[in-house]
């Protein structure tokens, strides 16, 4: 007995796009959120220019006045500030750093550890006072002891760039020059 052949059925040739669509719809929000996670930024820094000192003082400067040459030197004890080649003295401790370290919490390996930390608020305040006296000056020289960690240099740069007065931001010394270490 001959077998009856089943009639050939028409095959649906359309692609089933639903799984592909699901994948793409998941991937897009994932990529969009991942993009926002780590926003990178830069701080402009210059090295000291080597060459003969300029004979002509800037126009805003009195001819007999020395250039400001505002310098911050970071040491283990705190921050030493210099202006016009002179140390800015700490009245409470004339032999100590201009801004000594204060008690606070330092973050080591992601955990807060109580200890002595740099006083960035006081630094910003002092620099704002210096800026009042020298409104045109924008340069600051940053210097440190050889073992001072890079993170503190960045924080000092942040503290010296501008000051927040409520909602307003006041530019202090945004042009950073990095000098060689404190001997």
């Amino acid at each position, binding site marked *: 007995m001959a077998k009856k052949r089943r009639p050939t059925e028409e095959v649906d040739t*359309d692609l089933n*796009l639903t799984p*592909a*669509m699901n994948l*793409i*719809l998941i*991937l*897009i929000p994932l*990529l*969009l959120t991942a*993009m926002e996670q*780590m*926003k*990178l*930024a*830069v*701080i*402009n*820094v*210059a*090295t000291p220019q080597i060459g003969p000192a300029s004979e002509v003082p800037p126009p805003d400067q009195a001819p007999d006045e020395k250039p400001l040459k505002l310098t911050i030197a*970071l040491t283990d004890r705190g921050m030493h500030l210099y202006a016009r080649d002179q140390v800015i003295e700490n009245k409470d401790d004339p032999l100590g750093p201009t801004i000594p370290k204060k008690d606070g919490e330092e973050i080591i390996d992601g955990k807060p550890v109580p200890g002595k930390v740099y006083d960035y608020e006081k630094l910003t305040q002092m620099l704002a006072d210096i800026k009042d006296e020298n409104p045109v000056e924008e340069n600051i020289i940053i210097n*440190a*002891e*050889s*073992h*001072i*960690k*890079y*993170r503190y*240099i*960045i*924080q000092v*740069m*942040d503290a010296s*760039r*501008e000051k927040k007065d409520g909602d307003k*931001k006041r530019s202090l010394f945004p042009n950073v020059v*990095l000098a*060689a*270490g404190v001997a």
Partner: protein
Amino acid sequence: MAEEKNQNYEILSESYEQEMLAKKKAAKKGVRGETPAKLTMNSLMDILTILLVFLLKSYSTDAVNVTPSSDLDIPKGKTMLTPEQTVVITVSKSAILVDNNMALGVKDGKVDGAQKRPPEDGYFIIPLNKMLVDAIEKQRRIAAVNPSAGKSLGIATIIMDADTPFRLLTEVMYTASQAEFSKFKFLVIADATEGQG
């Protein structure tokens, strides 16, 4: 006469049966005599595919690409200046790289004294300088044919681990300045809570 009528009826019923059979077949297929309603997803797929490719590509077209690693803890900063396409010097806990090519190793925040000039106490790191000289030469050749690329000539972006001592930073900057780099950009993770210009 009656026979003829009967025959007619038979023909009618046969055609009716055929029609019903066709309808049944169609119903089985989910067709009701019309083309089925279908969503045209082609244009939507096109948009999504373009968006997906764009997003995937935007990762690699960022001016600076940083691969997160335990060796490289980038400090947070309050600046919002965007990175530019420059030569990138990466200083991690274990190595110094120029444009992602290894220059030399780092141990405990120091480079091997023999790799420096003068040895031990010097600021000049010989293998790093060699790679930076090559990098600036390459930049110069590009700038010769593409003047817009000349803007970044002599500028280096420094990506540095937050625990790196200041001494190594000055050594790297001194070595770079000997290779005619005069401006530096320190890469930081923008602190979103305190965005400033």
